[in-house]
């Protein structure tokens, strides 16, 4: 399955729901969507990885890029992920120490 992206607003958070495969071919689409949001003024972004079937280093690079950009601008960036295979990827790369990771969108947005 190719990448799917949907964006919605929860309070002050822009929530991007990602599905399918995030890899070296599709990650540029995710980067573009995140940059559009940030350029449009989004300060607090949550990326929901709940429907992601595959995530590689290129996708992780895009997520770190967004995190840095928002932190520099005084905003925030968090991920929603509760599936063990994906969590293992974050642990192995030590990115679980870099990203705020939440099990649900409600937890990430403080709802």
């Amino acid at each position, binding site marked *: 399955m190719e990448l799917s992206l949907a964006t919605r607003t929860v309070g002050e958070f822009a929530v991007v729901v990602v599905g399918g*495969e995030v*890899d*070296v*071919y599709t990650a540029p689409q995710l980067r573009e969507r995140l940059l559009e949001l940030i350029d449009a003024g989004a300060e607090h972004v949550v990326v929901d990885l709940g429907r992601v079937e*595959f995530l*590689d*280093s*290129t996708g*992780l*690079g*895009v997520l*770190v*890029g967004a*995190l*840095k950009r928002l932190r*520099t601008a005084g905003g925030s960036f968090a991920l929603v992920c509760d599936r063990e*295979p994906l969590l293992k*990827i974050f642990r*192995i*790369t*030590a*990115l679980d*120490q*870099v990203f705020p990771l939440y099990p649900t969108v409600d937890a990430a947005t403080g709802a």
Partner: protein
Amino acid sequence: MAVVRLSFSPAPVHVRTARLVGVAVARRAGVRQGLLDEVRLAIGEACTRAVALHQQHNLPDPVRMEMSDYGTYAVRVVDRAPLEAGADLAALPPHELARESLSEDALTTGVGFALLAGFVDDLLVRPADGGVGTEVRMVWPVGH
């Protein structure tokens, strides 16, 4: 026992094909179901790395991948980039990952290697036969 060879133009769109083939052959070879996600990720990382190196060096040559199942499932991914280009494989410590000055490309390379090293117990990165390029060799057990 079988050998399957695949060579593909160094473009990101073909990495998914390489993953699909690599997992299909792994399944056929008898790699247990619980390992297939790791096989898929590792093959993807090895091919992504090879494609990136070919693109950085403007090499139109195909990336080569060979899968064999002689007692174990072995996958070799071979690029044709200058050897020194392939030598910067190292995982990044956590405090480096979020460093502002670290480029996205450097971060992706470091994270990609961390994933390879983390998901493949039997991993070998060495100069390719013929002296040009690097071979990433990954081996998984088959059967029970």
